[in-house]
């Protein structure tokens, strides 16, 4: 009897709809091993606004404030007059080669997220190579039920994953030159 009931419960679990849900925070973690010492890799990304030099999708960066908490950058995506994203440092720790920043303003056409914050960190693998980790937590851009496909959890996760993968791949290319 109990077994039959449990089967019924399992059936209900499987039958639950996956549509029409409220937002839950998403996370993306990407890392890459780079055949270069950590100091060399960190030097490429240490300046918060250097991202236009190492990320292939960022055409331009305008800094507002330094490499300290509160320092901002305005990014142009794709081309110089492309969609803009404004980001702000929340934590900057050169000694541990890491910083944390949040998105102040995004453009949903290129990065459909809200309440986004992420860490970028370089770690020493101890054998002359480095590990760079980029990780972010965020909600989808659409705050209510039934998001359109371009503002869904999947769209947000896909966009962030693409930003991290493209950026890390090009960072490796530059650091290993």
């Amino acid at each position, binding site marked *: 009897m109990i077994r039959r009931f449990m089967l019924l419960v399992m059936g209900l*679990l499987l039958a639950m709809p996956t549509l029409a849900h409220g937002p839950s925070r998403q996370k993306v973690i990407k890392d890459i091993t780079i055949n270069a010492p950590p100091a060399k890799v960190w030097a490429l990304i240490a300046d918060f606004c250097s991202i236009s030099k190492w990320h292939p999708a960022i055409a331009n960066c305008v800094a507002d404030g330094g490499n300290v908490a509160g320092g901002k950058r305005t990014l142009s995506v794709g081309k110089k007059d492309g969609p803009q994203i404004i980001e702000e440092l929340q934590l900057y720790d050169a000694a541990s080669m890491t910083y944390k920043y949040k998105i102040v303003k995004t453009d949903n056409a290129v990065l459909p997220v809200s309440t986004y914050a992420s860490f970028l960190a370089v770690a020493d693998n101890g054998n002359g190579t480095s590990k760079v980790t980029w990780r972010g937590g965020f909600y989808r851009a659409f705050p209510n039920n039934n998001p359109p496909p371009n503002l869904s959890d999947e769209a947000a996760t896909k966009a962030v994953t693409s930003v991290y993968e493209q950026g890390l791949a090009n960072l490796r290319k530059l650091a290993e030159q």
Partner: protein
Amino acid sequence: MLILCLVTQMGAAGPLAFVTNQGANTVSVIDLATRTTVRTIGVGQAPAGIAFDRQRRYAFVTTPAAHAVTVIDVAEQTVVNIIKFDGEVLGIAADPVRDRVYIADWYRHRVWVVDSLRLSITGELATGNIPSGLAVSPDGARLLVANRDDDTLSIFDLNTNTAPQIIGVGHAPFGVTIAHDGAHGYVANVKSNDVSVVDLKKKRTVATIAVGDAPYAIAEDTRGRLFVTNQQGGTVSVIDLGAAHEIRQIPIGDYPEGIAYSRTLNRIYVASWFDNTLTGINLDTLQREAPVACGDGPRAFGEFITEP
């Protein structure tokens, strides 16, 4: 013989944490004394909130995405029922004197009253916009509801069932806790980075205490201190209630969220959503302990510890 062993083992269990793992669609049952995961229970999609009924017979797990609450038998540690709702169930709290749990509907400014023995919906209470955290006073007289998008707290009198009193708190209130003596309510305001202390007799905010970045939920110990998870700050703020200010921040992990107090173990436990861990803070030393692994995305939003 085997059954006898199992029964003995279950009876001997210390405080248990039921941690909702939002990414893994599971609940980790963690024996806090031995720091081991004793069971991982599959539940509905993206579990978030948790409460135990007053008899500690069932754990109620909210799964907003599935419009449902998964009911777990605490002794058996198995799913025994799923209650469906026509809305987004998130915040949840148990009534300490009645066989009821209260469950907030994220989008439709109401709280459901659920019979925690019959597992059926018995009523609805009207709240403000985006009702988030809930808390019930130890004497069962009051229910507090944080209305996130109104910057208010609804105070219901559960004995008279009259319209709630609504008072102003900070910006984007989320987690709510009631003092052990029932005199005050504590509200974590995500966007104003502070905690509102509400006098429940005078029905007004009597103190606003600055904490870290994006406070989420609050636990109280029995020495006049509050512990507040700062989601974006990655810390737990410790507040001295006598002095009404923050006395320190303890670095804890990335996106600390659910927080609860264990009287038996003299510890506060914190779920870190990004790190997939549960971390204890020793209340004598205020030192954090080595984290215990959970499933992906622990939220543990609510009173997630059951004491023996």
